[in-house]
């Protein structure tokens, strides 16, 4: 393959544009850190905590991107399954690591069912998977509320009355997870430079990364990438396209369920009706900040994204307060940036898709010109 002849300036511009989102964030963070006045030690500790807390959830997004289904806004489905698992173990008073594992076991069949449903619906809406998965998140949230707010305690037995609303059924707004709070994070802790690292969680995340790397090389992983490249070609090559796409969503949903449990064991309280709603948005924003696009994401993007996104998240309220004297402004700023970065990344992706088509056209023209010159 010959490459397109461009001036050096064009090439630099192209590279800059490709990495514009992480670069933009880098600039925001570089300006924000001194403004916030936080010590590097504090920031380092916060980032370590947040990498441990959020990475698992973000990695769950990688599989559907591989299969060409875009950013899986339906990961909230997995989060809901994880939360149902946590509600049950809180009710049965199963504590510590066994509690966490049991919650994961309970969440698995729920995640598989929801993922299958989500995959089925997304197959009916090819070409607009993202907006559809986004609406599925809302739709299933209604069903989740129906079950948790009306079903639990009336149809589904809940013994522990401290979980139930005073009216006799329905789960309270917050569920205390103190019994499993940080059990996994505190399993093995190493202190380095005054920062404590939750090694067990990091090992779990590392194992998941290895799984993703291994998975890319399996038959199923290869099939998914083929489907992601071109559905029709994949179908012609004998790959069951619909089946493969459903599997990718199921894997993502199950992982999101586990990720949610890891996330909530760090937080220690479950906001029964809110925790899952924001998680999709924050995970996707973080992944995009790391330089991922709708059709291309790797593990590097995850960690770069978590670091940059959460640095912005930590520093912006105090930076806003020190800069303009209003902390509220920083709060709004980070909400704006979270949404803005998703918008920017989606728009840039679409524009680049068009430009790449244009570039490959120019490359073709250049090659033909070269050939003509040789012939002459």
């Amino acid at each position: 393959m010959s490459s397109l002849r461009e001036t050096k300036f064009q090439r630099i511009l192209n590279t800059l544009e490709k990495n514009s989102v992480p670069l933009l964030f880098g600039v925001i963070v570089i300006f924000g850190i001194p403004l916030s006045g936080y010590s590097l030690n504090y920031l380092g500790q916060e980032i370590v905590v947040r990498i441990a807390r959020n990475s698992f959830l973000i990695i769950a997004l990688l599989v559907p991107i591989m299969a060409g289904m875009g950013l899986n806004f339906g990961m909230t489905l997995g989060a809901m399954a994880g939360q149902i698992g946590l509600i049950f173990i809180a009710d049965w008073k199963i504590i510590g690591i066994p509690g966490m594992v049991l919650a994961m076991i309970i969440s698995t069949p729920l995640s598989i069912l929801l993922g299958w449903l989500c995959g089925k619906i997304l197959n009916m809406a090819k070409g607009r998977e993202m907006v559809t998965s986004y609406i599925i998140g809302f739709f299933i949230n209604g069903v989740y509320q129906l079950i948790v707010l009306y079903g639990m305690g009336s149809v589904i037995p809940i013994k522990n009355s401290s979980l139930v609303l005073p009216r006799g059924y329905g789960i309270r707004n917050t569920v205390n997870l103190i019994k499993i709070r940080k059990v996994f994070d505190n399993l093995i802790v190493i202190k380095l430079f005054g920062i404590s690292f939750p090694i067990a969680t990091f090992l779990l995340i590392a194992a998941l990364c290895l799984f993703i790397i291994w998975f890319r090389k399996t038959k199923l992983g290869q099939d998914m990438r083929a489907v992601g490249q071109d559905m029709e070609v994949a179908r012609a090559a004998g790959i069951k396209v619909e089946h493969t796409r459903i599997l990718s969503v199921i894997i993502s949903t199950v992982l999101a369920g586990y990720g949610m449990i890891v996330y909530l064991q760090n937080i220690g309280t479950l906001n029964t009706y809110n925790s899952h709603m924001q998680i999709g948005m924050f995970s996707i924003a973080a992944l995009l900040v790391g330089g991922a696009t709708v059709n291309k994401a790797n593990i590097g993007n995850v960690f770069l994204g978590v670091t940059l996104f959460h640095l912005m998240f930590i520093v912006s309220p105090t930076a806003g307060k020190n800069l303009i004297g209003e902390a509220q402004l920083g709060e709004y700023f980070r909400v704006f940036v979270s949404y803005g970065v998703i918008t920017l990344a989606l728009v840039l992706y679409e524009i680049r898709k068009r430009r790449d088509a244009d570039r490959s056209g120019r490359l073709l023209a250049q090659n033909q010109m070269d050939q003509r010159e040789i012939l002459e």
Partner: protein
Amino acid sequence: MNKVKEFIKSFGWPRIIISLFLLSLFIIAPFVGVSISTSLSDTIVRFGMNGVMVLAMVPMIQSGCGLNFGLPLGIIAGLLGGTMAIEFNFLGQSSFLMAIVFATPFALLLGYGYGKLLNKVKGSEMMIATYVGFSSVAFMCIMWLLLPYSHPTMVWGYAGKGLRTTISVEGFYLHTLSNFLKINIGDSFLFPTGMILFFILLSLLMWAFFHTKRGTAMTAVGSNAVFAKASGIDVDKTRTLSVMMSTWLGAVGILVYQQSFGFIQLYMGPFYMALPAVSAILIGGAAVNKASIVNVIVGTFLFQGILTMTPSVMNSMIHTDMSEVIRIVVSNGMILYALTRKSEATQ
């Protein structure tokens, strides 16, 4: 029998189920002690409040830009218009007119930019529209704090700056339209004639527009962009025009909503306002690329009817308010149904 089947097919099962559900709510209502006339009146008021925002869906759907999940952008233009009318102290009836006058340049400008953006991302308009809406709302949250508003009814009392989260429009344009020629029957039935007339006026204008040359061109772009281009229509320009229309209607829509509701809701208020409007027009029978005024009227009535009736009827029946859950499931279920219909989209 065949005719019935055809009707069901064209009307769609979800719509039939929703209509039957609403009908049954109206039938049950008197038996559980819910007054029909109050419910009907509430439904009509809410219909008038939301009608224009649902109407704002039509131009973009017709021109093939899909469901306008970016409605909050239009709403922001309306909020700017409303707050400016109050800031410059236009009292009483005139403030409503001035609010529309102030909102218009913002709506056209924002709509123009938004339309240009959507032209660059053909094929994934809906996802990007959603996030344009969200980020513009979040951006305006910052702006509401910083913009130099100073009217005492709007800013925080102790700081003297930064707009409040809710601002009463009493003394300004409260019930400007609703009270115009309003009809009271008994003490429980109220018909907001002015608001409904305003909706009918805008609908007629829209209907007339779609029968002009430009309007027909818009429909042509929506049904087949390649064909439209071949017959000499400037596709991008037509799409931009449709987005500007939608945005302006969104701005006017929120002002109509506020004059009935009585409050301007700033900050995160407009955040989820697109979803009810989107699902209303879909319940009315619109598809992702095909919508009519009839869809708007039927859809808004059905959707708002359910929103009004479920809390009262369900509450008196089983003493549980499940209306929120029903609203979430019905509205998002309807959007999912529309998004997954391939045949309908390619018609």
